[in-house]
């Protein structure tokens, strides 16, 4: 297995829906063994991108490579090495939980029965229950079991936890970490698109924020948390500061909040020069980075 080949390689992907560009010139690379986050607002183009990875949609232009292969030309090979949990999980309504898993297993060369039993027990899913009668959380859990048991090299998750209760959401992430990443974590890659970032914060190594079909920011998580800082200061009197190069400045009376993009030291010294009463520096969590990403957008424009 060629470890240098990125698991996912997207170059300048463009996909149109009617007259509207769902994805417009997106590029990203996911290396083996990473947990890659794909963040964006509703309708930013996440699902479209993912569907292009699976040849459920074809790009209008640009290239998509999974395991170095073109999903259009080597469809079966690519799909044999990955599994997919979609946004809207759908099962055949007459099948029971057990039958659905058997059906999904019939397409796979490798299926871990122990993991299956384990997860069914953990989620308390009754194998003889019809899929029609499952709640939304249970359906997602079933889809996850179906995605993990074959032990694929790539796990693609599209908005997996939206609409689920907090307990189920936590269990989901724990399961991905526990059951999926067992085996050799170096060989297990996760690609998750979500807008519920705070929960995936610990899981994500690297991420891309997509906005209106375009890539806004790509970074490693640690680096991002290191780079984006929030500085809060309080002064003894109202002070006007000309903070150039700050990402965002909120000033109200004696309070000041500054978002720094990599230049926190310079801004800090500038602020310290005015002798603040109180000064706090905080890194932005990924969720906060995402929330202020429209500020990023404006600054990039």
């Amino acid at each position: 297995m060629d470890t240098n080949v990125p698991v996912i390689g997207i170059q300048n992907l463009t996909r149109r829906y009617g007259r509207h560009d769902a994805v417009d010139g997106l590029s990203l690379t996911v290396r083996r063994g990473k947990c890659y986050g794909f963040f964006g607002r509703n309708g930013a183009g996440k699902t479209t991108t993912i569907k292009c990875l699976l040849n459920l949609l074809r790009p209008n232009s640009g290239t998509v490579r999974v395991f170095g292969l073109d999903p259009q030309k080597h469809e079966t090979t690519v799909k044999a090495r990955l599994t997919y949990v979609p946004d809207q999980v759908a099962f055949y309504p007459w099948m029971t939980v057990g039958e659905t898993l058997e059906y999904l297993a019939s397409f796979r060369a490798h299926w871990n029965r122990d993991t299956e039993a384990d997860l069914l027990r953990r989620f308390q899913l009754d194998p003889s229950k019809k899929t029609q009668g499952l709640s939304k959380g249970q359906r997602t859990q079933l889809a996850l079991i179906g995605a993990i048991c074959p032990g694929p090299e790539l796990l693609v998750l599209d908005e997996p936890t939206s609409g689920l209760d907090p307990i189920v959401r936590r269990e989901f992430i724990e399961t991905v970490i526990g059951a999926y990443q067992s085996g050799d974590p170096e060989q297990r890659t996760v690609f998750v698109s979500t807008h519920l970032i705070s929960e995936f914060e610990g899981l994500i190594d690297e991420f891309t924020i997509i906005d209106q079909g375009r890539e806004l920011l790509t970074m490693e998580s640690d680096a991002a948390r290191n780079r984006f800082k929030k500085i809060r200061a309080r002064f003894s009197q109202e002070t006007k500061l000309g903070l150039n190069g700050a990402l965002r400045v909120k000033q109200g009376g004696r309070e000041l909040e500054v978002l720094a993009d990599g230049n926190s030291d310079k801004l800090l010294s500038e602020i310290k020069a005015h002798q603040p009463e109180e000064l706090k520096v905080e890194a932005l969590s990924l969720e906060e980075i995402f929330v202020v990403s429209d500020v990023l957008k404006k600054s990039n424009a």
Partner: protein
Amino acid sequence: MNLLLKKEVRLLLPSAATVLVLAIVTPWLGRSPYSLFAIITAVLFFGLLLMATSSFGREISAGTFSSMLAQPVERRRIWRVKIGLLALAAALIFAVCFASCFLRIHDYWADVPGNTGALYLKNNFAKAAGTGALFALMALSGGLWTTLLLRHAIASFWVAFMVPAGVIVLELLVDAQLVSVLSAIVGESSNMPGQDPARTVIYCGMIALGVAYGIAGIVFSWRLFLRAEDAARFGDLFSLSRERVSDDAAPAKKSSRGVRAWKPVRALLKKEFQLHTVSFLFVGAFLILHVLAILLRSDETLLNGFPVLQSLVQFFWVFWLIVPLIIGCMVVAEERKFGVLENQFCLPVTRFGQFILKVLPTLAFGIIVGSVLPLALEIAASSIGASSSGFSNIKNELTSWHFIEFFIKYVGAAAGLALVGIWGSTLAKNFLQATSIAIAGAGACVVIGTLITGKYMFRLFGLGLPILAVIVAAVVFPWLAWRNYKFFAESERVWRRNVLTFAGALLFMFAGSTAFYHRAWEVFLRAEPAHGAAKLSLENPPKLRGNIGSVLQIVLPDGRVWADTFEEKYRHNPRVRGFDALWQNPFGSLPVSQGPQIFPADSDLAASFTKKTEDITLDWIREKNLERFAPASFAGSIYNIQWQGYIGNDGSLWIGNRFDLLKTDSAEAKYLQVGTETDWLGVVTLLQQMIALKADGSLWQWNFSYKDETLEKKARVTPARLGIHNDWVGVTGVQFRAVALAADGSLWMWPQSYDHGPLMKKPRKQPKRLGNIFDAAR
């Protein structure tokens, strides 16, 4: 079993099963199989289209289409499995269907040589099978490519339905112009239709076009699937309703004060209207097709040699009945599919109100489109001379009771189909499911209702459909639809409710119709009213004579002649060759005014009647070598052209092969004695009955079922005593009924019994008293 295969079978099963049942049952539902092939072709087309549409359509509705594509399995493999299964199912249905047709024809015209109808069907069977196969191919391919292209069940259904029909019709129209051109090129056209070389070329072309469409459709769908994406390319075209429904759900913007006018009825009606947008489009296309069919009809010789197409074009107006069914099926199922049904129930409008506002417009729309519109078209067609064979002179008959009755039944059929569609729609989650349920439900009702109420022949526009079934259906379906709609969420109880209601309704129909059929009220009546004092006797019996017309004459022992005409609403006038002379009214046209009359013994009329008819009879008997049979055998009208009962000169009763009597030198005349008694005095032969008078004054009846085909079987049937009296002095047949004269001069009528089915109609306990001959005027 391979799980992919298993899943595919399960997906296809409901629609395939429905179509299979439909294919088996449809041939047996007609009165006569003349239009059988056209109806079968249409049913096959419709059914296979449904199957082909649901093959991919169900995946798309269930949302599993993209997850199916996301599995690591080659699309070719998925395609092979799906198409293979579809082809297998279609072949099975096709084979079963035509086997059923063949059995039907065989059953209907069992060993009747020379019957033109049977010969026609048997000769054209191969052609019909071929045409059916062609239509099946077109249906399958149409269903596949439209589903994969449009991703919208209803739209794909309509398009697949109409594209081949439209193409064929257009091609035929164009060919009508080409025929003359081609004839000049290819050669002189002979007078034999179907053997015209120009036409042959055209028809071959047509078949080739159909085959090409079928194959091209399948190849196109294959390519579509291989390159299928998780988004419909043209789906937006047909989601007009969807967009508009969601727009309409938002409250109208009113003045800044926020006062909104309370117009729920209008909003709901508008929503219903928009929900049917797709249907409007296709009704329009259907209209165009109908017009084209009418135009095709105007050239009568164009379709000779193609019985299926001919029937299709002639009976095109019947196909409009599909429309109310489809419209009905759409009604609730589409809202449920969109997921807006629950939201609707959260509006401050009663569920019942919403239901009514949904059902009534749909019903009205269905009725107008299903019956009024095609009839209007046909009336217009007849005024330009291209009328269908179903309505020969319709514009002359517009005000006749016959037409009005037909119109009412046609409207009733459209309404009924719309109701069944609505009911099916309340049970289903999407359009395809609704259609399957509606067809299954309607078909089952028709079959069971027909069987149970004892009528084997189901005549759509005749008197065959029992009023009871209609009333029960008209109550059960709307009520069930309403309850299903109201409690739409609880699924198990829904099914239980439907099944129980149907069982109850069937039980009710069974009990009611059995009671009605067997005239249960007669239990409370006397077996038969008593006869008066005897004025006639068997020592000097009167002579009764009925004829095929409606005149009954009785020659009394004292020489007087009693005569009357029997008016009936429906006139049946079969012409029996060779017997005209015998059954001609000896008086020419009888100067009879209304009501029975007695002509005195010495009148010319009486004398000439008595002598003339007797002479005619004896001459005729000699001529036909029937001397061993008594003249009394030939007294009653004979309504059966195949067999007849005879009284031997020794009083024995015989049954003979009637048809052979027409040939004077027949070596195959066959007569079998019935029973061993030799005291029979008279016999009347009706269509499936024989009534004979015994010397002891009792009447006996033989009821032949349709299974007693041969004379041997008939001769073995045991007779049943008819009535309780034994003072009968004469029996004859008039106007398809048997009439018996009792000793007190009263005339009693015993009706025909039709037996075409498992439940034999038993003779009535009470014969109908026609009157007393001695009460006649003059």
